[in-house]
């Protein structure tokens, strides 16, 4: 059924992505592709993979942006983007077949590969470009929040997180339950001012982004100002140094 769950899901699983930490290495995207091409929505088809015009399905893409502030000071921000598992997910409600659905138990948005007719309307309804069409199979595919990892009892407990989270070398990605105010992800969002992408559309995305921290430079406020190195006081210097200072100052 493509109506959204009426009851608020007991768990609301999602990701926090720290734009201050991400270095844009694309490891999350690569590990996502690696896991998911054998997972729930397998395969993540690649067409012409070694040819002149390769293209294929990826659930996670890393864009890099430049932000220039009022002082003409620029900052590079690497920006990973995957499905945000919105609370108010229009990709689910527009689906004519019931293939696209949001799970009541944890809020994960999935596609039932046996019901999808490949009409592509869900990808039009998604503001974030989270869904990619698999031309070869003729159906829509999307991030599953690694539903086949996070509950997988065959994996060691530490590995029961989405592939992108487990592989991030700098710890820019966190996974958890946003319904629990004491969870790591909820605390991070509260502490760092986590925000929604395109909040004006009111899709109520579950995934949150943490803003880059302010840069330390000459414009930083007094408390954050880096300590300046001051020259050693000349009167405490030795005889030779004072003589050299005088000669060189002539």
């Amino acid at each position: 059924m493509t109506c959204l769950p009426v009851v608020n899901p007991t768990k609301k699983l999602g990701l926090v992505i720290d734009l201050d930490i991400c270095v844009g290495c694309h490891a999350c995207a690569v590990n996502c592709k690696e896991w998911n091409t054998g997972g729930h929505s397998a395969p993540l088809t690649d067409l012409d993979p070694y040819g002149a015009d390769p293209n294929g399905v990826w659930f996670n893409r890393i864009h890099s942006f430049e932000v220039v502030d009022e002082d003409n000071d620029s900052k590079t921000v690497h920006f990973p983007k995957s499905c945000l598992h919105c609370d108010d997910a229009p990709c689910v409600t527009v689906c004519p077949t019931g293939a696209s659905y949001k799970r009541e138990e944890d809020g994960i948005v999935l596609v039932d590969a046996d019901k999808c007719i490949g009409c592509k309307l869900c990808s039009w309804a998604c503001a974030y470009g989270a869904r990619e069409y698999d031309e070869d199979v003729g159906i829509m595919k999307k991030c599953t929040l690694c539903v086949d990892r996070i509950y997988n009892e065959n994996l060691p407990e530490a590995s029961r997180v989405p592939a992108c989270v487990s592989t991030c070398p700098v710890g820019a990605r966190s996974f958890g339950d946003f319904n629990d105010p004491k969870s790591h992800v909820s605390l991070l969002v509260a502490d760092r001012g986590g925000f929604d992408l395109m909040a004006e559309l009111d899709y109520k995305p579950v995934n949150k982004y943490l803003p880059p921290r302010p840069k330390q430079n000459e414009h930083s406020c007094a408390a954050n100002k880096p300590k300046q190195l001051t020259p050693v006081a000349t009167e405490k210097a030795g005889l030779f140094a004072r003589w050299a200072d005088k000669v060189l100052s002539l």
Partner: protein
Amino acid sequence: MHPAKSVILFTTASGAGYGMIFLLTLGQLLGILPFNSTLAFSGFGTAFFLIILGLASSTFHLGRPERAWRALSQWRSSWLSREGILAISSFIPAGLYALLIVVGQGSFDGLVIFSGLVSLMLCTATVYCTAMIYASLKPIPAWYNRLVPTSYLVLALSSGALLLSCILHFQGLSDLITDITTIILLLASLVTKFLYWQHIAEHRGRSSVGTATGLGKLGKVRLLEAAHSEANYLMKEMGFRIARKHSQRLRKITFISGFVLPVFLISLVGVLASTTLANLVMILAILMGTTGILTERWLFFAEAKHTVSLYYGAEKL
């Protein structure tokens, strides 16, 4: 947005078909058009052909057309599903009405009126649902507005009217009322499209690369490095640019070929003495109208910008 040929054919052909059924049925119920079996056969025949052509064409857009029947299940939430159900169910009253007219030669009874009225409602509702498939998509400001269903409804009527007018001329059944109705509907389409283009120029949505990344608070944001080197599905489906380059010229083609020339040609037919010449002019009017509405629909898709483009270099919509 990528203007898929199958979807352009679907929306224009089925729109004209429903518009024609609506006008033919309404004209007969109001006593303006005769209960004539030749007219009913040719009129409803053409309309059903166009609708079936449109519906069949829409399934070519699907990745898995053999599962198309599944699209009828989610009418509670999905406009596409509602459209599918109404499109199919409108065949029942419209088909029954057409059959009663063709077979019954217009013996005017309750069932004719009832099926005709139900058919009028279902045809309107189907075209409205087609438009709402697009008008319900928030990420595309050019579609997310009330002028989209209005223009779909008005254009369905005017394209249906143009076809019906041609059939009436061929059968010598046209008169001043039918010609003037067609001209009024074509002019109404022209005005609606003008208002629509004015609206989308002024309302481009609040989203920008700043809100899409959430970095707008920190300064001016621009894409520094693309996420991938080759075009992906999103860029092909939502990053279509050719029409935007020529949009002014294409809008002129829509106005002149789609609305102005057909109005002129129908007026011309009124003063022509020769029937053969008049029929040729009507065929020309149909050809012009078809070119115009196909251009209009192509532009409707191609001009619309999706918020995804903000992640691929666009600064605003």
